[in-house]
């Protein structure tokens, strides 16, 4: 029986197409907004995740202070990594490295890349994996070997994107007039640790080679410290500060000659702001959906008023209150679910269009579809109930008399 009543509800909606369409327009806009907005939210999250993929929440970066107030006589040194490892509690590992920019050429191709001068535990701490070749050894360090491990971005730029990484091994690059042999290639990393510095568009050489032979004075010393777990990051930073101040023999009146940050907190902050943005946008879309529900309620009241006579006839030939109620409820639910479906479709069409614009990154999300669809069905049920209830309680004789 309910199938028949459903069918009648559907036919009633079909018979007034324009009104039905107008009443679901709000739902369509609301649902597609939710879908796009959730997509924008998860896009932002994904971007953040990609960007900070190789950051461990337990990392602390220590850098040399630059610019105003910098003290040139005392600098961050490679030995500071050992000091930190020895003096600070709950440090699982630490490594010092130098970084700088350098021009690299292979044949006629030439471009600027980040150069990291590293020691052998650098790749463990930064979660970077080798795709092929070998890692740096203490021997390379001692002999200031002119060898380098290269990032996938460098391979793409200098050798072309179709280049097999195996064939890159043994090739010779030219850096500041010096010939450097490639001994390894890293797997693609995607993101970067700190802003513009990319692990892909970079090459990695023994600390001594990079520092003394290539970069000279144009290098920046950095230390990565890995704490045993996230809870020690805050105390770790305090302890590193005091350990380094003692090591650098700073007086109380002197400011730190180094600075540090924990990348983990940056991820957290970025994610939090992305979440806040999503929440804000979803709230707006929710308001649109609620307003569209009021629109549906309005239309349903008009429909009930228009069909009062039909309701009277239906009651006279034996329709129960629940039959009348369900017919009008079906109508509003069909409207809202129909609007929801069209909205989902519109959302899926809008997302790829948005992604064509520079700076937009919208990820279609199943969650958004479910969320908005369920919500729109609920809106139809909620806002359709009162008009349907009123219809079902009409006095049959009064209803029959109306024209």
């Amino acid at each position: 029986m309910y199938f028949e009543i459903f069918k009648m509800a559907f036919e009633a909606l079909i018979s007034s197409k324009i009104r039905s369409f107008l009443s679901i327009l709000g739902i369509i806009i609301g649902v597609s907004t939710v879908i796009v907005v959730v997509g924008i939210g998860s896009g932002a999250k994904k971007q953040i995740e990609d960007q900070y993929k190789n950051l461990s929440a337990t990392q602390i970066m220590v850098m040399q202070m630059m610019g105003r107030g910098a003290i040139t006589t005392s600098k961050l040194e490679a030995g500071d990594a050992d000091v930190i490892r020895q003096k600070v509690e709950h440090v699982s590992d630490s490594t010092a490295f130098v970084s700088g920019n350098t021009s690299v050429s292979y044949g006629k191709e030439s471009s600027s890349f980040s150069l990291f001068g590293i020691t052998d535990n650098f790749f463990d701490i930064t979660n970077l994996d080798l795709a092929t070749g070998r890692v740096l050894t203490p021997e390379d360090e001692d002999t200031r070997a002119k060898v380098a491990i290269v990032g996938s971005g460098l391979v793409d730029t200098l050798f072309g994107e179709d280049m097999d990484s195996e064939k890159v091994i043994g090739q010779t690059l030219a850096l500041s007039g010096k010939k450097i042999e490639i001994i390894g290639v890293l797997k693609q990393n995607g993101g970067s640790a700190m802003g513009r510095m990319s692990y892909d568009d970079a090459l990695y050489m023994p600390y001594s080679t990079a520092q003394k032979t290539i970069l000279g004075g144009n290098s920046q010393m950095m230390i990565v410290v890995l704490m045993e777990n996230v809870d020690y990051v805050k105390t770790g930073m305090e302890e590193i500060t005091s350990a380094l101040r003692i090591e650098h023999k700073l007086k109380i009146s002197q400011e730190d000659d180094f600075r540090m940050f924990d990348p983990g907190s940056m991820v957290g902050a970025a994610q939090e702001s992305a979440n806040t943005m999503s929440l804000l946008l979803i709230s707006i879309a929710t308001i649109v959906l609620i307003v569209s529900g009021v629109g549906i309620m309005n239309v349903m009241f008009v429909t009930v008023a228009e069909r009062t006579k039909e309701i009277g006839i239906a009651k006279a030939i034996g329709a129960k209150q629940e039959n009348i109620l369900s017919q009008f409820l079906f109508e509003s639910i069909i409207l809202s679910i129909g609007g929801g479906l069209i909205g989902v479709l519109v959302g899926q069409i809008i997302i790829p269009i948005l992604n064509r614009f520079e700076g937009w990154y919208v990820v279609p999300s199943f969650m958004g579809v479910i969320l908005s669809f369920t919500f729109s069905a609920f809106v139809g049920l909620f806002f359709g109930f009162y008009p349907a209830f009123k219809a079902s309680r009409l006095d049959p004789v009064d209803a029959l008399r109306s024209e």
Partner: protein
Amino acid sequence: MSDVLVIKMEDVHKSYYLANGEEIKVLRGIDLEIKRGEFVALMGESGGGKTTLLNIIGCLHPLTSGKYLLEGENVGNVRDDYTLAFIRNKKMGFVFQQFNLFSRLNALSNVALPSVYAGLKKDEREKRALELLNTLDISDRKNHKPTELSGGQQQRVAIARSLMNNPEILLADEPTGALDSKNGLEVMEIFRNLAKQNKTIIMVTHTAEVAKFADRIIYMRDGKILDHNYTLKSDY
């Protein structure tokens, strides 16, 4: 016609209350007995309470006071929607002056509608509806919408609908009021035939030409029955 009483009313009163609380007495003490298979016409002046009485018999209205026994059972105080809907669905068939068909449904679906509410299966429903349309000689119009049918055809569809769940009682409010005299007479012939098949028919009319088809004419005025077996003054 048998001697079994289908409808019995004792001292039935019905009042409406205006918004200011004023009471409008529409029925003032109706006593009524109608036998199974009887064809009764309700006549009387406008505002005399004919339609109200018909609606009370059809369980569309509750009583203000008094007793209404339908097949011996007091249904005058029933307020429960399920029971009322059941009585209207299975026990009564309504025929209206303006036909009151659903404009979106075709003739066949209009006829079948009461059994949708009764929960009958689609094929059984359509079979029965088609039979009824056949009996009433309009099965060739089964796929037409009401707007594509003449008044006489619409009223036949409406009569078929009233018979759908095979009710004991047919209630008709001015069934010929919107028809020309030829179609009106045809509808009366249909009613006469149904009365022969032991259907109880109660029909409101103000036309003597129509009333004369009934077995008995009840004459009402000012909410009371003046005559339980009224005789028409002249030959029609």
